[in-house]
């Protein structure tokens, strides 16, 4: 199978969906001439023109509000919030309008809106360009939250998100854009709300998503050599969360490590862990342990930044701890 980057996979998804459905248009900061801060929309403005790829002013709340109005009246916008750190600027529109409008109106409208954004540390960009804020978003009923880790999933999930009649927040990771993976030439979709066992194992289950999948797989490889068999589950979608796949795995391995990049306190891992306890407590032979981001604003220094997020070594150590 051909190998392409995560960035290219996303670009293909947008291109294919725009070609397939004239109601789809892109809307955000620096996405047209510039091609997106991380190049995801490169070439699409040249191909589809001003009315399908729209550069907006720096007005995040206005971008999401306007995209919502367009979605309510028959279009299928893909809005871009350049960094997830800027989501605070549009949290009113996202939380109060986008997520709730269908429910508040008794189901009498649809919001086919995708909000693409990216997050995560790794480029030493400091506290305003490196956050992992997905736990804010999974606390909002009415939206879906998708965080793909591989080029294959990125493409298939973005296409599904664009075809979904519900609002989907699609969170990419800045350190994944240049990663490569197998992506078929022919069309395919990856369903939202279905997690994926990226590596089978029998001794311990790692539950993870986004970039931390790559770290977890690397850790699993190292541990394998030491005779520890790790099962790695990529959640892919955080809301709705496919906990069944996780529970099934826990029933097999009886041990769980959660690996997440976001801050530990009140983080996504807390939700994952609690759902495991609610659904598979009797099968646990050891406490669930989180390997998570530090509860600090992301520091600039490359040394400190590395310490603020999980690394392969820490994951290996924690896996061994739960096996003790």
């Amino acid at each position, binding site marked *: 199978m051909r190998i392409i980057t995560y960035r290219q996979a996303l670009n293909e998804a947008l291109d294919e969906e725009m070609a397939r459905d004239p109601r789809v*248009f892109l809307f955000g900061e620096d996405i047209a001439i510039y091609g997106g801060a991380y190049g995801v929309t490169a070439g699409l403005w040249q191909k589809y023109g001003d*009315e399908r790829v729209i550069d*907006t*002013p720096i*007005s995040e*709340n*206005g971008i*999401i*509000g*306007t*995209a*919502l*109005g*367009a*979605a*309510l*009246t*028959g*279009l299928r*916008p893909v809005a871009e919030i350049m960094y997830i750190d800027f989501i605070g600027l549009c949290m*009113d*529109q996202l939380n*109060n*309008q986008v997520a709730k*409008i*269908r*429910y*508040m*109106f*008794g*189901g*009498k*409208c*649809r919001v086919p809106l995708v909000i693409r954004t990216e997050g995560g540390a790794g480029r030493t960009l400091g506290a305003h360009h490196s956050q992992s804020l997905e736990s804010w978003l999974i606390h909002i*009923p*009415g939206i*879906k939250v998708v965080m793909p880790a591989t080029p294959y999933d990125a493409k298939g999930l973005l296409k599904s998100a664009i075809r*979904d*009649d*519900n609002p989907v927040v699609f969170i990419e990771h800045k350190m994944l854009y240049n990663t490569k993976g197998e992506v078929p030439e022919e069309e395919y979709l990856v369903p939202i709300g279905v997690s994926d066992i990226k590596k089978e194992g029998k001794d311990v289950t790692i539950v993870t998503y986004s970039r931390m999948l790559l770290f977890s797989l690397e850790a699993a490889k190292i541990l394998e050599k030491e005779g520890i068999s790790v099962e790695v589950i990529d959640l892919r979608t955080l809301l709705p969360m496919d906990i069944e796949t996780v529970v099934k795995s826990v029933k097999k391995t009886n041990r769980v490590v959660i690996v997440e990049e976001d801050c530990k306190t009140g983080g996504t891992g807390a939700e994952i862990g609690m759902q495991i306890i609610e659904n598979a407590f009797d099968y646990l032979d050891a406490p669930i342990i989180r390997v998570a981001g530090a509860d600090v604003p992301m520091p600039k220094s490359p040394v400190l930044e590395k310490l603020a997020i999980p690394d392969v070594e820490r994951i290996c150590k924690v896996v061994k701890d739960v096996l003790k």
Partner: protein
Amino acid sequence: MEITKELAIKLLKQMMEIRQFEDMIMELLAKNIAEGGSHLYAGMEAVAVGAISVINPDDYITSTHRGHGHAIAKDGDLKALMAEILGKKTGVCKGKGGSLHLADLSKGNLGANGIVGGGIGIATGAGLSIKLKKENKVVLCFFGDGATNNGIFFECLNMASLWKLPVIYICENNKYAMSVSVERSHAVKDITKKALAFDIPSENVDGQDVLAVREVVEKWVNYARQGNGPSFIVANTYRYYGHSRSDPRVYRTREEEKFWRERDPIIIFGNKMKEMGILNEEEINQIEEEVKKEIEEAVDFAIKSPYPEPEELYTDLYV
């Protein structure tokens, strides 16, 4: 502007419907039949009725936390609206929205909003949608004086002007953002000036005069339909009741209230129609009686309607 008898009846009746609807809700709140809160539109009827009377059924509006008037003027069903305010299953949003979220997309009402300024983004997006789809529709975006101090107002007016979107932004200046007066919260007292920053044409209109509102809104609706872009209208008006039911109105004087009540939009319009010989006293009384009956029927319907079933809690969240 020429007024046919048919139009006069329609305008007067709608204003009366809104007034009596709101008076009735105040009564239901006092009797605890209506729970929670409600922001009443009484006193401001000429703005919603005048503005919405010049657009087509398939044009859009967005409304505010004080949204009953807009919903009624946009061909809202009185029974379904009343039932919604009481949280009943037969409500226009199945009892899940309430007073702050009256909406009926089938009639182009993109919804009231619990957040001040919350509808401005939606209206601008509907305008973008119209432009991209090359339709000949317009959007009337209603909001209060308070919303023009909100960030999304500035973000969206900029985009609407930049892209020449067919949105008529209508600020209902009723002088108070809850308790804080325009004088105490706006650096610019003439709110129309805010549109200058975006090169959007703007003007003030007497919000107590339904015909004046019609004339101004019609002008800017035509302007928008011709592809010239947005406009900004400040309708100067007054709400008779407080911000909400718990408001003792300590921030304004009884004299000021009296002044505005003497400028009642329904009386002004009724007198004008009598002067012009279009409607007589008897006809006006007859309309009022008809409306009274309609409101009674709506309340009866709402009170007798069932609440949603428990299983409705989890429906309508996702498609």
